[in-house]
């Protein structure tokens, strides 16, 4: 599978490699007692909605279930509004589709030191036995909300765009002692190559 190590120049000294991820984000929020309907609909569109706390990947799309009855659908950037309108019309009856592409900024982390670095801000237990590949969780780090996902191809972090710079500064400062390498952008496709869960 193609992780950032292959998409970017591999750096043997790098404890942690960080790359921005250009992505469209739509949040699907199931209407009251319409969750099953939404799941069926999504399945028909070839997009299985994962259980809470898990990531699903299909058709170069990632789906994160970090909040109950809500899913973040990550796909490659399209012209403004396109991703939304397709969902809006489709699921009007059973869910709200909300555009969050501008609200969230995505970072991809990889390398042997990722856990060490995250442990300096993240209160969750990220031990391989406790937070296995395919896990996702909403929490907070460096005083800002974070949706943290672990993929076979590394870690995916979503943070609010208004504090993205603050978070990036915190990450850089924290990761530097471990060998921090800033890499070129990765694509959703490269992360969703392998289905999890």
């Amino acid at each position, binding site marked *: 599978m193609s992780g950032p190590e292959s998409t970017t120049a591999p750096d043997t000294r790098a404890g942690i490699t960080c790359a921005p991820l250009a992505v469209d984000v739509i949040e699907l929020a199931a209407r009251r007692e319409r969750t099953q309907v939404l799941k069926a609909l999504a399945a028909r569109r070839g997009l299985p909605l994962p259980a*809470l*706390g898990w990531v699903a990947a299909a058709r170069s799309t990632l789906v994160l279930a970090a*909040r*109950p009855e809500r899913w973040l659908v990550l796909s490659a950037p399209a012209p403004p509004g396109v991703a939304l309108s397709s969902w809006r019309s489709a699921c009007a009856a059973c869910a709200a589709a909300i555009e969050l592409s501008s609200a969230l900024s995505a970072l991809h982390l990889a390398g042997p030191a990722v856990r060490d670095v995250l442990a300096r801000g993240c*209160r*969750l237990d990220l031990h391989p036995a406790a937070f296995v590949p395919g896990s996702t*969780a*909403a*929490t*907070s780090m460096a005083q800002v*909300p974070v949706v943290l996902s672990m993929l076979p191809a590394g870690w995916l972090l979503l943070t609010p765009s208004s504090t993205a710079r603050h978070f990036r500064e915190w990450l850089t400062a924290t990761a530097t002692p471990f060998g921090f390498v800033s890499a070129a952008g990765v694509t959703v496709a490269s992360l969703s190559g392998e289905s999890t869960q």
Partner: protein
Amino acid sequence: MLRIPCPWCGVRDESEFRYRGDATRLRPSAEAGIDAFTAYVYQRDNPCDWHSEWWLHVAGCRRLLRVVRHTLTHEIRSVEPAADALAAERAR
């Protein structure tokens, strides 16, 4: 430091939650009158004992939880989604 077992997110530090106070006080009906609303808004049992309280998991699922916690030992006896808690309340 509290560690609250969120039914949706698992055990999380207290810093992820926003406290919303006594969960035994339920909003009276519109016609209940000033005394009923005064009691609802202002009067508290404030026990040194088991305490039923609201916590909003703002950094996680953003769900409202009813936590039953001892105010002296801080031991947590139960945590449930607000909806379930209120349903049970009404059943009683």
